[in-house]
């Protein structure tokens, strides 16, 4: 790329192309879809955490006027089981219920209130079973088993996941192990060894729009309007469940009111389809907030981290043992576990590494994908431990990190993509912005740092896109990236406009419909700007080639002589032609279209630890200044600085939005969010007692800095963003709290009461 190159559309904060629709309330979400004759579904959920299902009888509910269909376990008989990684789920419970909230039956009726009334008429007999509701309980000898069958497994994104044979008869369902070097030898060489255990709470995505589906099962065809992040994968799941070819399943995705991973894979969409099949009409199945709390969460985790350090402060060896609690069904648990296991070494040079990460079933809500995907659990651990080590060895936390950081071009592990960013420069900038070297005179105040890295863009991606020019010269983008609020439609349109030399608002984005839109595996893992970005860029370039080839013929010149700029075709000697003119010349009428195609497919490599080298490295630096109220245990966030390596910001304001949103998201699990269980029951499935951050939780001084070195594999040097901002938050705050008070916290969230108790213990010990 030429350095002097200037761009017309990318790098500018264009007005979002979905903005007017959204702020005026006109934007259509799945919950808004209303079809003629549409029924409303409701789900009967288990009140018990673990129980055998003795009897389910929906006959009385079927008699209630206004009820169209009652779905019970009888309806599962003709269907295949499903799940993101393992096929361990059914539309409703069959032999037993595995968590409080597990669907037992469902009703479709004229309205939701009638459906709820019908739920009360369904007769269910349970026989309660002993339960396991934590990692410790699940791992105990002779623990009750959540799943009796041990031979489970499945495929996710081209990779096979299954439980090792020795897990038979236990609640363990997956293990990821990785080693490089000789960890035992590394520990032997080490002068100091640090061993700590950190825990991470169960938290929920809290999308503004809870899960929703409108399903219409007609003949052998299923049409779904779904709030999903992966319509094509959902199509694949449904095809399998219902024994149908993918061509018989159509998924239309309206705007999605937040995803954060919670709308990946398959949730209650198949149940909606069965309701529609039985009711012989379209059925809308929209969760309440409480139901979404009982559908999917982030994995609670326990991370044991052991690190060996040399005399001169070099990291020599690290061993991690990680347990991820996946709840009653695996969902994406095995893959999340794999990522947690792989990402626990951090952005540091460690010659000897070993990790064993386990997925554990319990009788709680299933845990699946959630923004960061196994990373937050381990960044909390390793970046907290970096400060523990630095202090013990007498280093400034900044200097100690710099001493051990990977350099650009270094390998995180052999066979993976080399590090693509200057980690030290970013850390120095974060330290500078927070005023690391400035002395703090007020009591109970201090600063903390963290730097984190994860493989970005998802492991192994397949994507494609199309860009069409219509007969009138207007341009339409067909992309499978779901607009979940992140601004993908806007940023991808900028890429098209830049490539075609047209104005940003000359690009229209088509409704996502799996029957028309080219394939894309999913909208996750901070991937869209790179994976879909490249597909879209290539599609636009393909269209451009076609246009210029046609134009060259018409203008009797060479395609290489021509360019697209200012919304038309231009060439030497003031040669110029409008698109509509060209289209008429090609098709000899006001008809026809030109379609450009583009695709992207990640590499596979047996040498890479995860089977495929990462698309890019997602890197985030965070620095916090806090004040701790010793009397109440409250942590005041005085300042937070977040740096994100975005490669190139296609839309700088939305990149900042993603990063700030990520930090706010992480302030939740750092300071307040936690789903509390007692006797298998979730005590706080509501927004009063489950606290998500509000504007009041914003740091008083909050800065996001975009690092742009045009080093990404995406269009114009872009990287992906979205998850990075979350990674350093908890540890940066935890480290600052330690430096302010001497209290080292190991268990998130850092609630006032926990900090107050911790401070009380310290003062007793003094």
């Amino acid at each position, binding site marked *: 790329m030429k350095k002097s190159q200037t761009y017309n559309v990318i790098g500018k904060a264009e007005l979002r192309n979905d903005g007017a629709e959204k702020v005026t309330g006109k934007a259509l979400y799945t919950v808004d879809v209303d079809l003629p004759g549409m029924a409303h579904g409701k789900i009967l959920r288990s009140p018990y955490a673990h129980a055998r299902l003795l009897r389910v009888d929906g006959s009385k509910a079927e008699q209630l006027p206004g009820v169209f269909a009652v779905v019970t376990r009888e309806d599962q008989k003709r269907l295949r089981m499903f799940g993101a990684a393992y096929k361990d789920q059914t539309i409703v419970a069959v032999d037993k219920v595995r968590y409080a909230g597990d669907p037992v039956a469902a009703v479709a009726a004229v309205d939701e*209130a009638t459906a709820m009334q019908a739920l009360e008429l369904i007769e269910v007999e349970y026989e309660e079973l002993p339960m396991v509701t934590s990692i410790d309980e699940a791992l105990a000898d002779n623990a009750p088993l959540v799943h009796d069958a041990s031979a489970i497994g499945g495929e996710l994104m081209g990779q096979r996941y299954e439980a090792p044979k020795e897990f038979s008869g236990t609640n363990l369902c997956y293990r990821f192990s990785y080693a490089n070097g000789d960890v035992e030898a590394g520990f032997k060489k080490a002068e100091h060894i640090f061993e700590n255990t950190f825990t991470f709470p169960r938290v929920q995505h809290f999308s503004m729009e809870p899960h929703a589906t409108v399903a219409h099962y007609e003949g052998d065809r299923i049409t779904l309007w779904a709030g999903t992040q992966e319509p094509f994968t959902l199509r694949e799941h449904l095809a399998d469940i219902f024994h149908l070819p993918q061509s018989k399943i159509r998924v239309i995705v309206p705007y999605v009111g937040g995803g954060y991973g919670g709308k990946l894979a398959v949730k209650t969409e198949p149940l909606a389809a069965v309701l529609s099949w039985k009711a012989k009409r379209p059925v809308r199945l929209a969760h309440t907030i409480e139901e979404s709390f009982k559908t999917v969460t982030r994995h609670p985790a326990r991370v044991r981290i052991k690190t060996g350090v040399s005399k001169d402060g070099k990291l020599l060896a690290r061993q991690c043992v990680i347990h991820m609690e996946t709840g009653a069904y695996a969902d994406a648990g095995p893959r999340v576990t794999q990522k947690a296991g792989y990402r626990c070494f951090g952005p540091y040079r460690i010659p000897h590494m070993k990790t064993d990460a386990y997925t554990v079933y319990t009788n709680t809500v299933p845990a699946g994908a959630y923004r960061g995907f196994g990373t937050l659990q381990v960044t909390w651990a390793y970046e907290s431990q970096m400060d523990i080590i630095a202090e013990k060895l007498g280093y400034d936390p900044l200097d100690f990190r710099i001493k051990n950081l990977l350099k650009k071009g270094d390998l995180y592990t052999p066979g993976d993509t080399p590090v693509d960013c200057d980690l030290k420069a970013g850390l120095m900038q974060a330290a500078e912005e927070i005023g690391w070297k400035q002395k703090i005179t007020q009591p109970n105040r201090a600063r903390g740092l963290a730097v984190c890295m994860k493989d970005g863009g998802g492991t192994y991606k397949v994507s494609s896109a199309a860009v069409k020019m219509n007969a009138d010269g207007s341009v339409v983008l067909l992309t499978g990236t779901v607009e979940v609020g992140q601004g993908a439609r806007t940023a991808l349109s900028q890429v098209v406009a830049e490539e075609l030399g047209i104005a940003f608002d000359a690009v229209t984005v088509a409704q996502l419909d799996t029957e028309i839109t080219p394939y894309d595996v999913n909208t996750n893992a901070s991937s869209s700007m790179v994976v879909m970005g490249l597909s879209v860029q290539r599609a636009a370039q393909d269209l451009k080639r076609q246009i210029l080839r046609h134009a060259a013929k018409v203008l009797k010149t060479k395609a290489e002589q021509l360019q697209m700029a200012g919304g038309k075709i231009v060439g030497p000697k003031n040669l110029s032609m409008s698109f509509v003119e060209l289209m008429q010349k090609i098709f000899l009428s006001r008809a026809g279209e030109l379609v450009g195609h583009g695709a992207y497919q990640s590499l596979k490599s047996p040498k890479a630890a995860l089977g495929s080298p990462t698309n890019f490295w997602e890197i985030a630096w965070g620095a916090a200044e806090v004040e701790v109220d010793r009397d109440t245990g409250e942590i005041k966030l005085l300042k937070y600085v977040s740096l994100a390596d975005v490669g190139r910001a296609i839309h700088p304001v939305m990149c900042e939005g993603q990063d700030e949103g990520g930090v706010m998201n992480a302030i939740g699990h750092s300071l307040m969010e936690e789903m509390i269980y007692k006797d298998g029951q979730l005590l706080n499935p509501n927004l009063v007692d489950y606290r998500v951050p509000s504007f*009041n939780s914003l740091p008083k001084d909050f800065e996001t800095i975009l690092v742009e070195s045009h080093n990404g594999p995406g269009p114009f040097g872009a990287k992906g963003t979205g998850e990075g901002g979350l990674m350093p938050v908890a540890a940066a705050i935890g480290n600052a709290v330690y430096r302010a008070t001497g209290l080292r916290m190991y268990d998130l969230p850092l609630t006032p009461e926990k900090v107050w108790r911790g401070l009380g213990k310290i003062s007793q010990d003094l």
Partner: protein
Amino acid sequence: MKRTEAFDFYQPATLQEASQLLKDNGPGGRFLAGGTDLVIAMKEKGLLPKYIVDLKRVPGLSGIRENSDGSIAIGALTTLYTIETSALIKKKYPFLAQSAAEVGSIQIRNRATIGGNISNASPSADTSPALVALGVTATIASASGERKIPVEEFFKGPGQSVMNADEILTEITIPKTAANLVGEYIKFSPREMMDLAYVGVAAVYNLAADKKCTGVRIVLGAVAPTPIRAKRAEAVLEGQILSEALAEKAGQTAAEEAKPISDVRSSADYRRAMVGTMTKRALLNAATGPAKSWYDRRDRRY
């Protein structure tokens, strides 16, 4: 959200009519004001009233007026937002305006009424500690007449008050107070807004030029079945010169007087300790005058 069972709905035009409806229809009826507690209880907590008597058509139940004797009367249907923004209340009793501002969101405060907030008798109601601390009297009416009772004696337990089913809270009266009366209400909850109090503390006293404190009232919310006065803590400061040490001691005494429970929000231990801390801070803040802005208030709570 469930469909509620069918119920009769009345909109009487007078108090007598309203009270008579309760007498005639018997048990199972509820009065409706702003509906911010009642409607949620019906839709989400399974409350099934047989009938509802809406008080909003009864004239004269809302508004704030200053009486000739220096007392201030507040109609039961006055919204919390009206109290929060009333120039008179803000000037004379800024901590009361503030306690109203602590409730829910602005949408809620535009519906919720002061009478409803009191009648609902929630132990964590934000306005109750300030009202008790001010020695406010409640006027209760029924078809058979009217009676007055101090708000301090109004509450009997969570959701329980001295009112009979056919009685209606019509007005509260803040008695004339000394010109040097100062006060503070602190709601302690981790989110600080859109949240329920872990602990609420109202502190009110007359502050002399030499910092001598008299008429000390310390009222605690959310740490007992009803709002309670911490009388031993009041005695610690009564007639004394305000100092940090004394405020600390009063706080510790108040903590001993609290009867908190443990629940999903907080342990009893923590609540008790926070009563101590917040009582101390409320006593000291009261002397420095009202917070200038919401941010100011948030900051000095620490």
